[in-house]
């Protein structure tokens, strides 16, 4: 299996011995040894995956990198976080997924209204199986624990990914004041309940929520 390691906080080094990884298109910055790059499409494999991709608009262009040696990946100098999956499912915004072990299955999942407020569409990418994944964040991400007693509420623009047995619901703080233009700028939130981990970045994407 390919070995993922961070070189600094913004460069991912993957050591490969004939195995393969899936990475965001164009994210390779350097490699040594022998590597081959092949374009794939995200959203899961096969016909079903292709149909889902068309319908959901959760299109990410992914390439398969296969070879012997070390391949370095980076994306616009954003911070990289390593996630170890042991049979669980990781939910991540397609734009934040940098690289996964080729053995991990990727798919799409319906996110409901949350996606709409993020401006990311109604669907999100899922990564499932056993292996490593690398996600990017604007600034160093924090991993927050959600447990039965302690639910967590996150700004949609700062949310990047979550894993575990977690239910998410959409919360709106839209009041009369919001419409009068006196809102607090925090009109929408995502609430996580259950047992799992949520990755939050120290930056806020521009979302519809931010304008309300």
């Amino acid at each position: 299996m390919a070995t993922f390691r961070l070189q600094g906080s913004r460069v991912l080094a993957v050591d490969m011995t004939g195995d393969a990884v899936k990475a965001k298109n164009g994210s390779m910055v350097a490699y040594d040894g022998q590597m081959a790059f092949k374009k794939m499409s995200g959203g899961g494999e096969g016909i079903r995956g292709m149909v889902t991709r068309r319908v959901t608009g959760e299109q990410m262009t992914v390439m398969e990198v296969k070879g012997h040696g070390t391949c370095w990946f980076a994306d616009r100098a954003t911070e990289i976080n390593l996630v170890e999956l042991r049979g669980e499912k990781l939910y991540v915004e397609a734009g934040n997924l940098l690289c996964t072990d080729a053995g991990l299955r990727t798919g799409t999942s319906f996110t409901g209204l949350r996606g709409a407020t993020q401006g990311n569409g109604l669907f999100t990418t899922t990564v499932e199986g056993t292996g490593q994944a690398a996600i990017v964040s604007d600034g160093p991400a924090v991993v927050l624990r959600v447990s039965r007693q302690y639910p967590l509420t996150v700004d949609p623009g700062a949310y990047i990914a979550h894993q575990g047995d977690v239910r998410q619901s959409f919360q709106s703080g839209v009041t009369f004041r919001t419409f009068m233009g006196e809102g607090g700028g925090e009109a929408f939130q995502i609430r996580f309940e259950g047992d799992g981990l949520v990755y939050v970045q120290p930056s806020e994407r521009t979302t519809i929520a931010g304008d309300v």
Partner: protein
Amino acid sequence: MPFRQINSKMVEATVTPGAKIFSQRGAMLAYRGDVSFTPNLQGGQGGLASMIGRRVAGEAAPLMTVEVHQGPHGRAGTPTGTVLFGHGGHHIQVIELSGDTLYVEADRLLAFDGTLQQGTMFMGSQGGVMGMVRGQVTGQGLFTTTLKGHGAVAVMAHGGVIEVPITPQRPVHVDPQAYVAHHGDVRNKLSTALGWRDMVGRGSGEAFQLELSGSGTVYVQASEEKL
């Protein structure tokens, strides 16, 4: 060594009397001591001929000379100065040279030791036609700046920088947009991984790479954006 890394985006240079530092114009953030900054019309050293060479090559980055004045009390009272350099919030990497040659684009140079010999190199002389294509692909032109000797160089990058060693057994391929600089006994050429699929628009986005072989070090930035 005159450069001390303050944080990832700032370096401090110590200037002693009689010694010179060249820096990109406008890169001074703060200084202590009796330091003077003079625009360097010759764009470094090497005199007029070399300046014209650089103008033609398009590698004439506006430089300034940083020096300290002799103190009023003669040599005994001569101070050393310290200067903070940084530019545009870019990441800064200090590279130490011990007799070898550093290849770097002029606009990435933040500051360097005045003892280093400056020059330009025609990229086509390495790697032939592909060496010339390289400039077109990377948008960096046909020439690159060389610095040779013993001393330190501070270069700018977008995001962090990693050092990748090049050994005769292991050539390194670098994305032309992520390439920052290299030094050592290294040959570089542009290689393509273009297949028929890429021609019909199904490329992986990794069509061209810079292939560096020999022995030395290449510096790669954590981003595919230019400065």
